């Protein structure tokens, strides 16, 4: 076999390996019910859930409970399908949290508790002001 064919095969093999390993490590954006299903099927994979904090009828955020020492927080989040879930976060509450218009939690179910390892916030005014 020619050397260039060997190199070609090796490159393709590495590329395929990269794609497969990426596929395996990739997380996904899911809703809470699918995340729960995945956890019940024995998957411990971390997933992304996009949603909003629960608000009452006048638009105030409700269900956010910082621990007494304020070093961790739990909150109620609605995913894109409006499913409600209490999320536990073992870090102090990010202080822009209540103002966020969108929350992405990255984590997984441990038994029935959804534990977030990381929270990404989309705030209305992160880089550009839109209101006077």
């Amino acid at each position, binding site marked *: 076999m*020619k*050397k*260039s064919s060997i*190199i070609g095969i090796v*490159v393709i093999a*590495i*590329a395929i390996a*990269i*794609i497969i*390993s*990426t596929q395996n*490590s*990739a*997380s*996904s*954006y*899911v809703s809470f019910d699918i995340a729960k299903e995945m956890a019940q099927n024995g998957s411990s*994979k*971390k*997933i*992304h859930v*996009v949603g909003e904090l629960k608000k009452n009828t006048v638009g105030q955020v409700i269900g956010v409970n910082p*621990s007494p*020492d*304020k*070093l*961790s927080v739990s909150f109620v989040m609605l995913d894109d399908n409006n499913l409600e879930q209490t999320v536990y976060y*073992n870090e*102090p509450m*990010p*202080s*822009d*949290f209540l103002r966020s218009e*969108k929350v*992405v939690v*990255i*984590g997984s179910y441990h038994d029935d508790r959804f534990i977030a*390892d*990381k929270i*990404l916030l*989309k*705030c209305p*005014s*992160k*880089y*550009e*002001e*839109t*209101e*006077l």
Partner: protein
Amino acid sequence: MVHTGIGNIGHLLIIISFITSLMAAFGYFKATNNNEVGKSPWISFSRTAFIIHGFSVVGVVVTLYTIIYNNYFEYHYAWSHASENLPPYYMIASFWEGQEGSFMLWLFWNALLGFIIIKTNRKWEAPVMTVFAVVQAFLASMILGVVIGDLKIGSSPFLLLREVLNDPIFLINPDFIPADGTGLNPLLQNYWMVIHPPMTFLGFACSLIPFSYCIAGLWTGKVKEWVRPALPWTIFGTMILGTAIIMGGYWAYETLNFGGYWNWDPVENAVYVPWLIMVASIHTMITFKKSATALKTSIILVITSFILILYSTFLTRSGILGNASVHSFTDLGLSGQLLIYLMFFLIISIIFAARVWKQIPSSEKEASTYSREFWVFIGALTLSLMAFQVLIPTSFPVFNAVIELFGGISTLAQPANQIEFYSNSQVWFAIAVALLSGTGQFFFWKKMDKQKLIASLTSPILISLLLSAVIFIVANIYDPVYILVLVAGMYSIVANSKILLELLKSKSFKLVGGSVAHIGIAMMLIGIMFSEGYSEAISRNTLIISKEWTDDQNQTNIPLFLNEPSFMDKYEITYRNELMKVNDIPGYVKKSNLNNTEDPYYKVIKQTVVIDGATYAQAGDTVYVQSPENFYYQTDYKDLETGKEFTLYPRIQVNPQMGDVISPDIKKLWGRDIYSFVSVKPYSEEDIEWSEKVDIEVKVGERFFVNDYVADFNGLEKLDRMSFVDLGPEDVAVRANITVYAEDNIKYLAQPVFIIQNGQVGKQPDVIKEIASKISVESINPDTGSVTLGLTTTQKDFIIMKALEKPHINILWIGTLVMIAGFIIAVRRRYIEFMQMRDKGIE
């Protein structure tokens, strides 16, 4: 007054720059097709057009900067990126904080580079500048701000606030001008924000030069000749972009507290990927110049690196990264335009390349395993695969969007632990790159066969193995992957040093660029391995700080109580003070020594500030605090082995736009950095739980106790005016001055205020965290000549701190400098080559 004129001038200049770039593109296109060189009519025409274009770009820049500098907050851009309290050196950062300004920065660099090309080239001007002018037209269209029907082209930075915001105030008063802007994000008020963006955009701009030469070559049939003039610019661009990337990393390390210098965030990846391809293209271009092979690969790589720059622009600016990245730009609705920009050049490149692909020479016979071509090619392949591995997951949001476009559902997200995911793969590529860069050099400089190869490789291999063995015994490295990294890195250093020495011996100083750059890269690799692989929390702790925390969190954070020494690593550490920075006072001022005023930027000094015998502020002076959102936590370190002392000031920024931002303070030591930060924001005054209040009655001059500290009541003082309260003619405000004597002969001044306003009693207590007390004036008793003070106490002030050790991180930074030096040597050599050929009239 609303300054509409200046914005109209700016907008007009943008339109001129857009039209002139189109004119230049058309003229240069004509000139190319007519094979014109020198001072022919089309070239003169296009040159004039491009020069007008360049000057209007400069004019746009000056106009926007004037608007920012003069605080014309009637303009949306000035209002949302600048503020009254911003010093001039950060105003320049406001300029490129927004998308529009950063596009202008890019336009500016491109125009400048275009001038250089016009000045330095003879035969290449027309086709190269055609590509330049088209790129400029696309970039100018991004800030054009022209609306035709429903079609919006570009987003102009010269929009008035009333044109952007739908605020009812503009219905009442169309000439309303806000008193202050919302400012440059405090987190970006950092000198890196002044240097890093221009570097990055210069790097982006430089990638246009090799691309333009390549397209010019394919277009005019000079499929080989474009390499020589393109090469120095490729190396230069790679150096600039590489430096910009490292600067960004250092910035992240120093202030952004990602815990490291690289976070594999999509925005970072978007620049890293094209950079790798640019590095690969340098190698294949050099090979081509030596032996007329790898031309096709060079063409593909040069085009790919430019397209990838456009792709990264699309990723970071179109809003597509939305949920995936913490720091992409806001969406300006330019995604369509950006996509057209990307697609245009992708398609044009493919067409130009395909047209002449068959005429591009490629060597018939296979490269021998003992040839430099073979090894350089393998190196370029490795770099491309390295880029591919990062590109795939970074593109997930694009895959999702494409699949959804066709009605499918795709929910791919970044790997949950992205740092681990990328690092684990990239390390293998890095090992391969190090090994290849060591071996490749031998093939590069000499004709090799099996015997010669063994002869020249034996000693570097032995030396590097020996050195690695010593290091890994001394540094206790047991992880097999890290051992491999170390060996590969050492091998690259030794092998390249050998070549370097030989070149120096033969006095070929000009040729050492490659080996120097390789040594730098290998050092960086070893530095990264040590500082990341062996980064460890030295703030070990056996107390449980919080039951909600994981064991790891509890064990790696230390609670530090004020003035109570704790032990960490080989240090005795003591938390001393909560501090702020005050303008015109060197160092820091205790927060408890500053009284707030209505304006957060101005504070009143309580106790005279004397530093080294010089008085900087008298009690009662109003001082200016440029960054009132920054708080510093002084921690003293004492090395128990050597007795040496140093102090760190980690910062917490209460950022109105982003929440609390933690920034570390770093002690640079010879063999390691100590990277310490306050991991949890200390309680703010509202959150403190106070004990029940105890009232005591004291007379002037009387001594009493506050939370077990001795205190003197110095007397009362009537205030004519005070912050936060409007005193009427009938109102009275009286301030009690109390001196508290704390540990280490430190005196604190407590100044609670007692107010009678409209017959109502008001109390303004004073909180002094250092003595964990709140003191208020409860009543003034004229009959006994005393006052009643209310005293409450809380637990001792403390911070929760985390400190990481980053071993041998200096090797990374030194390696970076070595790499840059290597690049500079190489640029110089290749540019001289180009000049010589040009002056002979060949190019």
